[in-house]
């Protein structure tokens, strides 16, 4: 299915743009974690966590290894039981239901294709467990083979397939039973970068087309941002932030999230004013004032950090009109030329480094700004956020 979209002609825009059940107070959550804790001996993998996932949502659990995201998914599948709390699916309490009786299916990180069965038998395996009539199984398996474009490979054993083909067999196998929820455990981790990017878009197409709920576990922030309707960023068994990819990127709620996703500059200081929908932060050392169009989130006198993405920082050789607000000055310490963009590392008087990303819109013959230049960095009042944790 490489290269070609599964859906016919129309873009997914209308479907994806209108979909936001999490903003609708009347919407019923499909998967619910209620105060779930999971401990392994002394180690708490999931810590008093509550979470709602909605029907037809493509939901991503994102975090570093050991943050509890895999354990969370395995509790939906039934491979782990919560130490305390409840996991509900479609109004039914899943606690105590063994994995083989749950209406969920999982695509494993290792694919877990049965090596002694061919592709056809692998896909038919789950259907046979339900005692489906033979003819129906055959129809369904052929349908799934067509869906992942592997009709010609039905008789092959898993070791006779390439990595991408294995991934598609695993996907077909987990979709064959039409589960209420499809769980994807680092599903694209074993593929090379190019194939991975193609497959991400295919997964979205597939999810919209089948109208299923997908939950994906990944440590790859780009992957989560590409495929998911919402992302839950996890750290040490807790959810730090749940939001759409854009919100997570533009309005991180903590330094942890800001730092985990993308590149970020942090300037530390204290809140000196919160009046009129504008929060003002006085930076330590430089005394620079940061004014952000932000209402709430910080109280007068709080320790806080101004977080701004490098691409939202402008760099200039001449001072701005008002150098006392939303501007700092320093010397160019280093320049990383990445082709499409250049990243300037600017050393402030305090010793801190602030990064600014400049798009290389013209062919670069001579840099207008170069090493050791004294420069000004500026940003707009909507460029960043003030964080208190």
């Amino acid at each position, binding site marked *: 299915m490489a290269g070609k979209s599964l859906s016919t002609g129309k873009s997914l825009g209308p479907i994806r743009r209108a979909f936001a059940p999490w903003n609708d107070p009347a919407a019923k959550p499909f998967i619910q974690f209620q105060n779930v804790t999971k401990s392994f001996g002394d180690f708490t993998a999931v810590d008093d966590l509550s979470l709602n996932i909605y029907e037809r949502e493509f939901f991503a659990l994102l975090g570093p290894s050991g943050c509890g995201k895999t354990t969370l998914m395995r509790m939906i599948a*039934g491979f782990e039981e919560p130490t305390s709390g409840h996991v509900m699916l479609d109004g039914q309490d899943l606690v105590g239901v063994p*994995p083989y009786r749950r209406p969920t*299916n*999982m695509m494993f990180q290792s694919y877990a294709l*049965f090596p002694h069965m061919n592709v056809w038998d692998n896909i038919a395996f789950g259907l046979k467990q339900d005692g489906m009539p033979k003819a129906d199984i055959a129809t369904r398996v052929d349908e799934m083979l067509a869906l992942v474009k592997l009709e010609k490979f039905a008789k092959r054993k898993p070791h*006779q397939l*390439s990595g991408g083909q294995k991934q598609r067999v695993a996907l077909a196998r987990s979709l064959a*039973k039409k589960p209420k929820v499809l769980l994807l455990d680092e599903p694209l981790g074993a593929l090379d970068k190019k194939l991975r990017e193609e497959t991400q878009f295919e997964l979205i197409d597939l999810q919209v087309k089948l109208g299923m709920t997908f939950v994906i576990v990944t440590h790859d922030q780009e992957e989560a941002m590409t495929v998911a309707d919402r992302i839950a960023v996890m750290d040490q068994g807790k959810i730090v932030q749940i939001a759409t990819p854009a919100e997570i990127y533009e309005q991180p709620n903590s330094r942890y999230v800001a730092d985990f996703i993308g590149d970020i500059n942090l300037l530390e200081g204290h809140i000196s004013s919160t009046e009129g929908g504008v929060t003002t932060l006085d930076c330590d050392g430089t005394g620079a004032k940061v004014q952000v169009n932000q209402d709430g989130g910080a109280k007068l006198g709080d320790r806080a950090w101004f977080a701004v993405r490098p691409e939202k920082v402008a760099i200039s050789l001449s001072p701005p009109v008002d150098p006392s607000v939303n501007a700092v000055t320093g010397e160019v310490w280093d320049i990383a030329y990445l082709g499409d963009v250049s990243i300037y590392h600017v050393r402030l008087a305090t010793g801190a480094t602030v990064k600014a990303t400049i798009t290389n819109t013209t062919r670069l013959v001579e840099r207008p700004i170069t090493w050791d230049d004294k420069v000004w960095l500026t940003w707009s009042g909507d460029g960043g956020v003030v964080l208190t944790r």
Partner: protein
Amino acid sequence: MRRGASWFNVTSITLGFAFLYLPIVLLVIYSFNASKLVTVWGGFSTKWYVSLLTNQGLLDAAWVTIRVALLSATLATVLGTLAAIALVRFGRFPGGTLFSGMVYAPLVMPEVITGLAMLLLFVAIGFARGFWTLTLAHITFSMCFVAVVVQSRLVTFDRSLEEAALDLGCPPFRTFFTITLPLILPAVVAGWMLAFTLSLDDLVISSFTTGPGATTLPMKIYSQVRLGVTPEINAICTILIAIVATGVIIASIVTKRREVERQRAERLAIQGV
């Protein structure tokens, strides 16, 4: 340090294998010796093999040995496989340390101790010694070898295969028979073969635990060896070696061919054919 032939490695391998094989080769050669004196070559002859066929005592012992070996190997394989699963999958259960101790101890336990202990058990409970006590003893020590062989396969077994089966609606019991067992089968078969040959070969434990009417081939050979070396024993030893060697060589050729085929298929898959 490149892999491949260096004079040191070639020499040590050659000498090592000569040491391992020369005595066996000589034994086989002298089983075809026409002379009654085992160590004096008197021309080629197969008469000792013919005389074996008329030696009723040896034939009876061989029959007992094979029955004990088949029965004990089969039961030891079942018990040993269960023990391996218990060791690998349910590592922490009450008395788990004692259990793993009892599995590993027979591997190194001097046979005289195991033999004596089992005999005393059978005497203490008043179990008439013979075919059945022999079989029970053989099951007990060979199941531990099976357990170790199967365990080493289970340790590297990808658990997500079983989880995938459960996830697709297959209950645990059925998962074991449709997924786990077929995949660990080579190790189980290897375990059976090991248990079979261990039982076939055993002298010390058998001598302790057997009773009237259940003399095994090794016991028969041992009592004759004590009287002196005869070409007839060379002949029977040669037959035993031939049987075992054929079994092992066939098994390893089958495994190797399968492995080669698998690798070829993987190469083709990577090339995208």
